[in-house]
């Protein structure tokens, strides 16, 4: 798995309520398969995938491909594992926040997950992608795309409707997140002599995300 050469080890983490399809999503992404049987994740797990990333510069020119080793952490949505799973938030560079489009409560809980992220992630405004999963189950839909988009906008994060069952948008989501991370990385490093985000890190000053209008912008 981890054999061979790669240029970057990038760590993502999927979170969200129990049963929204985090494991299935990742399984679909890494193996292209779907298992409709629900097996609850015990605490934590991870999957790996090797991808090639081609950076697209501001001028649209793409650079040479870089070999990325993705470590995709899967977390248990169940409350009882909470203390364990949140401890892993700090090790991830980017986050996939999933909710179930057929389950309104999971959507309402996105807010809680966001604040958990704010507390436990490596910085106050990590890269997050909001995913409304199970979009293939159109007849059971309980959350409209509009309200989901509205929420995502409020947090300043991209929103995608995905389906772990048929693979819709799955790899796109990971690609977009990877792109966000790679761009953030560039900003962190490029001209690192210019004071960057690390100077304003005296703890979470505004616990409520909504009070943070410039979210989505890199602190670097």
């Amino acid at each position, binding site marked *: 798995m981890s054999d061979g050469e790669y240029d970057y080890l990038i760590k993502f983490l999927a979170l969200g309520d129990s049963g929204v399809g985090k494991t299935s999503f990742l399984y679909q992404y890494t193996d292209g398969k779907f298992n409709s049987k629900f097996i609850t994740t015990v*605490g*934590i797990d991870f999957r790996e995938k090797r991808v090639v990333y081609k950076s697209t510069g501001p001028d649209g020119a793409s650079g040479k491909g870089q070999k990325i080793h993705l470590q995709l952490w899967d977390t248990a949505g169940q409350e009882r594992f909470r203390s364990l799973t949140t401890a892993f938030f700090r090790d991830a560079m980017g986050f996939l926040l999933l909710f179930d489009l057929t389950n309104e409560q999971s959507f309402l809980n996105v807010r809680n997950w966001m604040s958990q992220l704010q507390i436990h992630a*490596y910085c106050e405004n990590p890269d997050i992608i909001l995913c409304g999963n199970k979009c293939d189950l159109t007849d059971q839909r309980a959350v409209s795309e509009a309200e989901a988009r509205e929420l995502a906008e409020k947090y300043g994060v991209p929103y995608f409707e995905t389906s772990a069952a048929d693979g819709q948008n799955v790899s796109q989501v990971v690609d977009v997140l990877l792109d966000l991370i790679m761009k953030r990385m560039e900003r962190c*490093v490029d001209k*690192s002599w210019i*004071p960057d985000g*690390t100077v304003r890190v005296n703890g979470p000053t505004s616990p409520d995300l909504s009070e943070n209008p410039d979210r989505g912008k890199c602190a670097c």
Partner: protein
Amino acid sequence: MPEAADMINLGFLSDSEREMILEVLRRDEGLRQAEEQRVRKLKTELLDVKRKGAKRGSGRYSQQCCGRCLEPLSRLTIFSSQCKMCNHHVCRNCRTVFPNGSWLCSVCDKESDLKKMTGDWFYDQRVNRFSTTPGYDLVSVSLKKRPPLKKRQTAGEVLLKSNETKADSQTPVPRPRLKNPAEKNSHSSEISGSLASRESFDSKEDVCSRPVHSDTESAENGSIGSNKTQTESQHVSPEQPRRKAGSAESSPSGSSVSSLTVPVKAEIVVTDSDNPETKDTKEVKPVNPSPELDIDRIFKKSVRRAQRPPEYISTMDLRDGHEKPEASMGYRSRSVPGLDVQEDEEEEEDIDSLVSFHKRSMASSSSSLHTSKSTLGSLRSIYSEAGDYDSVDVSGDLVFSTSYDEPTHSLRVLIKECHGLAYADASRQLSNPYVKCYLLPDKSRQSKRKTSIKRNTINPVYNETLKYSVSRSQLYTRSVLISVWHHGRLSRNTFLGEVEIALDCRDLDSPYEERVALMAKTASSVPASVFAQYKGELVISLKYVTPKKPITEKFKGKKTAAEEGGQLHVLVKEARSLTAMKTGGTSDSFVKGYLFPTKAKTSKRKTPVVKKNLNPHYDHTFVYKDVALEQLKAMCLELTVWDREALLSNEFLGGVRLSSGKGTVKIAKEEVEMDSVGEEVSLWEKMMLYPDSWAEGTLPLRSTMGKTEGK
């Protein structure tokens, strides 16, 4: 760092769940180790690139040649050839041009690449976030002993490490179930216990590299907590010989085997692990080949069980504090033992070479011996405890011979006598000379040999043989550096001259006496870069604390009362991969800080000594009071890491120099260029730009603090 990561209580998990999680964590460990190896390799590569370029670190060079390859630059390009990061002028071949047309010099480019590829961009940011107790608190907190934090440490790592010992021990070893009720009980507490303990960082290597007694010692430490445990540890003590034998032969392979735990069968009922009855239903586990781990377990378990109910165990890893300093191997380098060896073999610097570097750079800037002597004064004031010396015009010669003694495999250097040495104190016509010898390239204490001191003579006769145990084949790559010194009983030693003898072309079988003229310290044409050697890294945080009552108080202060009372806080967090100076591959290090320019020694600060650790955590804050933000621009902060040596002079391990990197600063009446580079500059500027917040950075240690004279 969030509490959660430190103290995750897994008491609520069932055995099978724990096993599954541990399995995940072990997979993660595999990935992590590969990653560590990769990171190590990358850093080595960067070092290579840096080595090639001569103009690293110190800034005073001709602008007519490329800072990397030293090829002359054409006049046309000179105006546009400055790297925007390090400010060196570099030629076209030594640039990396980006798609948008901007460029950096090859080293700076490589450096920022490295930051990306190693994930340091991420870890640097994370460290900042989780090391933040609000401003002032940090100072007081840092003075207390805090558990060491590792920048690259992940939750998985912490969890796994804390469970590894437990997992190791609970698995295996064929033994009758229920043999020992205490063991039974503690079993549950053990696994359900802390995921937080960091003790086992070293659990792999330390079995080989550190003295066995430390384990028992730590167990004893634990047992102090309660009487009950004490009796229990006595129980175990008969087993200790066995344990020792075990650890002697145990090796990383041992521990890796033990981590191959067979997943627990699914039909095992998920139950509360605290319930001893369910324990009885437990299956016998697979066999573990390393017996000492089992004893280890009895040990630890009984200690824990006696002390607390399992739920709280996560908070009680008191032993960690004791065990940690025993670590003798750099954690980071663990997975690449070969590199460790290499590093240990690398030439070690001591204060002499520090000073000689200084002299060399002086000489190369073609100043007379006189000036160099006076600049030494500046160095002296800084490293006064560290064996500095005076210098005089060298004269006289040395009579010596070298031979190789086959039976004992030793090189013998016979120091016969000296003639016509210079007076160390010309006015009093005084010299108490002795001869010191190094077998280069080793300049560490191990390689130092000295003769006796002859009193009050400039023609001393020694007839003393200095011996080195060394294989003959090795000699061809080495040389002997013989120097003559005046021993100042109450004052500094004085350098009287030296000579370097290459051994490759010497006939060591028929010793003949040779008379050579003593020389002043040899000047090398191109000063070695101060970063040429990887001496490790220093992690620090800087903060400028603005005065509480700004402005207004104009009446009180004489001039700029506005800015008076500002403070510079320097949090010295940790050092990594320091050079080992002591036997056993460790160092007892501390960090010393100076803020220049300064009056006398008022700016000197020191951290406590962290013993036997090449990755020491100091977590100590230096506070410089009454500093105005404006002043900082023209100031220079020097942090140096030293190996504490109780009776001898401390040995220099590396240092950093933080400043804006421009202009000069007055150090002991000497205008010295502020030659800070890269992150040394960026961190300093970051600190100034954002008062009242911490700016943290990981800085490579310079191998010498040699100064460049300002113009």
